[in-house]
C-alpha cells in the first residue's frame, strides 16, 4: 500500500531536499507532508493525476502526489 510524493523544483529548491519519496497510502496529504518534515504552509499546490486536490485528500495506493511551492507569486 504505497504511493509516491514528488516535489516540484520550486519546493526542492526551497527546502534543499530530495525530490521523490515513497510513503504509505491511506493518510491525508497534510499528514504525509508533516511526516516528511515539511511545513504544510509552504506547499501551495497538491496535484494528483491532472487534478488539484486539497491537503485533506486521502492518498490512495499507487498515487503520485505532486507538491508545488510558490516562490514568486506572479
Amino acid at each position, binding site marked *: 500500500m504505497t504511493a509516491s510524493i514528488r516535489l*516540484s523544483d520550486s519546493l526542492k529548491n526551497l527546502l534543499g531536499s530530495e525530490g521523490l519519496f515513497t510513503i504509505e497510502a491511506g493518510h491525508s496529504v497534510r499528514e504525509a507532508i508533516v511526516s516528511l518534515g515539511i511545513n504544510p504552509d509552504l506547499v501551495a*499546490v497538491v496535484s494528483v493525476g491532472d487534478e488539484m486536490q486539497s491537503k485533506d485528500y486521502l492518498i490512495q495506493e499507487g498515487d503520485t502526489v505532486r507538491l508545488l511551492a510558490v516562490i514568486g*507569486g506572479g
Partner: protein
Amino acid sequence: MNGYAGKILRVNLTTGTFTKEPTPADVARDFIGGRGFGIYFLLKEVPKGADPLGPENKLIISSGPISGMMIPGGGKCDWTTKAPLTGGYAGASMGGHFTAEMRYAGLDSIILEGISPKPVYLFIDNDRIELRDASGLWGKATFEVEKQFKEKLGEEYQIATIGPGGENMVSYACINHDYGRQAGRGGVGAVMGSKKVKAIVLHGTKSIPVADMQAYRKAGMALYKACKDAEGLKEWIRYGTTTVVDWCNQVGALPTRNFSAGSFEGAEGIYGKTMREKIVITDKGCFGCPSPCGKYSRSKKYNSYVEGPEYETIGLMGSNLGIDDIEVVAQANLLCDDLGIDTISAGNSIGWAMECYQKGIFTKKDTDGLDLKFGNVEAIFTLIGKIARKEGFGVLLGEGVKRASKKIGQGTEKFAIHVKGMEQSAYATHNATAMLLAYMTCDVGAHHNRSWAITYDLQVGRDLVVPEKVARVIWLQNFRPMFDVIGGCRLQWVELSIDRDLYVPALEAITGIHRSWEDLEKVGDRIWNMTRMFWARENDGFGREWDLPPARFYEDAPTTGATKGQITKLEDVNRLLDMYYEQRGWDSNGLPTLETIENLGLEAVVA
C-alpha cells in the same frame, strides 16, 4: 548594435511629425532596455512638475534585447510614464506579441510626445509610419477596436489600444493588447488617452542582429529544455496564476472584503480548480512562451468569452468584493478589459466604496442609488461602467482610493488600501512582514511584481522583523525587475524554478556583452534608485511618510480567517523601514544619499 533593432521612434503628436534616432549605445550598455530605457528617458526628458496628462509628459514604450527572440517569455514590453494615478513613476509590463512585432519593425522604443489635436492611431509597417485619423474609433471599447484592425489589416498586425477608460483619462486606465493582455497599472492608458492616441498598430519583417548565432541557438534551446523538463510545468499550464487562490486563502493572504481579512468563506467558488472545471476552454500564451499561463474562458451564465481571470483579478474582483462565483469574476474582468481600466485598482476601489457603504458613510444618495453591499453583482458591473465612463459616482472611484478617501474623509483613509496612491494588488499583508515591506517600498506603489516574499515570510517566520528579511526584499527588487529590463517574462524563473544562470549565455550571445547576474543586479539597483529619485523630484515632501502601509495592516486585525487577531505593529513597520533605508544606502527619510548616488555612478543621470 547586436541585440537591438537599432532605432528609437519619437512621435511628436502636437506637430504630427516623426523622428527616428539610433538607439544610443551608451544607454544600451548602462540600462540595457525595457524599464531601464523607460526610467532613463523619463528622468532626462520629462520636466519636473509636468502634468501627467499634459503635453510635457511622455509615454515611453520599450523592448529589451530578448524581446522577439527565441527565448522563453521574450514577449514583454515596458510602458513608462509619469503616473496620473500616483504622480510618481509608472512602469507597466505588457505581454503578448506587441514587443516582438515592434522590434521586427526596427524599433527598440517608441516615445509618444505632446498631444494630438484630434484622435489618431499610430500605424507602423516597417518604415512606413503614419498618424491616421481615429475619430471613427473614439468611444469604442477595446475588443471591438482590435477586431476591426485585425479584420481590416490582417492577423499579423499587433495592436495596443485604449478603451473609454483611457479616453476619459480615468486615473487607472490601462492599455489592452491581444484581447487580454494589458499594460495595466498606474494609469498608462490615461496618458495615451490624454495624447488622443486611440491605438498603436504595428507590423514588421526585419531581423535583429545577433552577436553569435550558434551560441544564441544553443542558449535558447537550453532555456526551452529547462522549461520543458521542469517539475510543475503541467500544473502551471493547467491553472496558471490561479494555482495560488486556495493557498492564499489558507495562509490568510487572499484579500477579503476590502482587505479586512485574508481568508474568504466563499473561496472555493473562485479556486483555480473551480475555474478550470467551470469556465476554462483553452490556454493562451505570449510570444514564444513554453508555459502559457493565460486561460481563455467562457461564461455560460453571461454568454461571454474572456482571457482570464488570473489571480490578481480573482482576488480583487472576487473575495475582495465578497464574490464567490468565478463566472461573476470573469464577467467583471471582461468589462474592465473591454472598457480599458485596471482590474486591480478597480476592484480595490470598489471594495473601499463597499466598506464605506457598510459603515454608513455612503448611502444610496451618494452611490447613484446603487445598493453597494459586498457581494452585489449588479452593483459591481454597473460601477465598472460608471468608472470607465466617468459617470456619477464612478467619477470619485476613478480617482483611486487615495484621492477619493482624502475627499470623503471621515476616517475612510484608514481603510484605503494603497501605497503612494496605487491600490494594493491581491495579497493581504496583515502578518507577512517581508511582503508588507515589498509593497511599502515598491517603486510604482503597492504592486507585487517587483518583490514577492510571502513564502519566505512563512518559511522564516511571518512576523519576524530582521535584517535578513529586508535584504531578501532588496535582492528581489534588484533582480526580478531585470526581466522587465531585458524584455522577458519572469514567470519561467518564478514559477518553474528554471536556473536563472541560463539567461546569462543567452543575453551574451544576443548582445555580445557578458553580464553575470551580479552585473545585472547592479543595473537593477541603479534603476531602483533612479525611480526613487524620480518620485522625490516630482513630489514635494516625498519621503518616509510615503512608504507607510495602509493603517489597516497595523491597526485593524482581521476578526476571521487564518490571520485572525494578527497584525504588524507600527513600531515594526518603522523598524523595517529603518533597516531598508540603511541597507539601500538611503537617509532616514528614505532618500538616496550623495554617497549612494556616486557609488552607483548616477550623478549625471539625476543631476
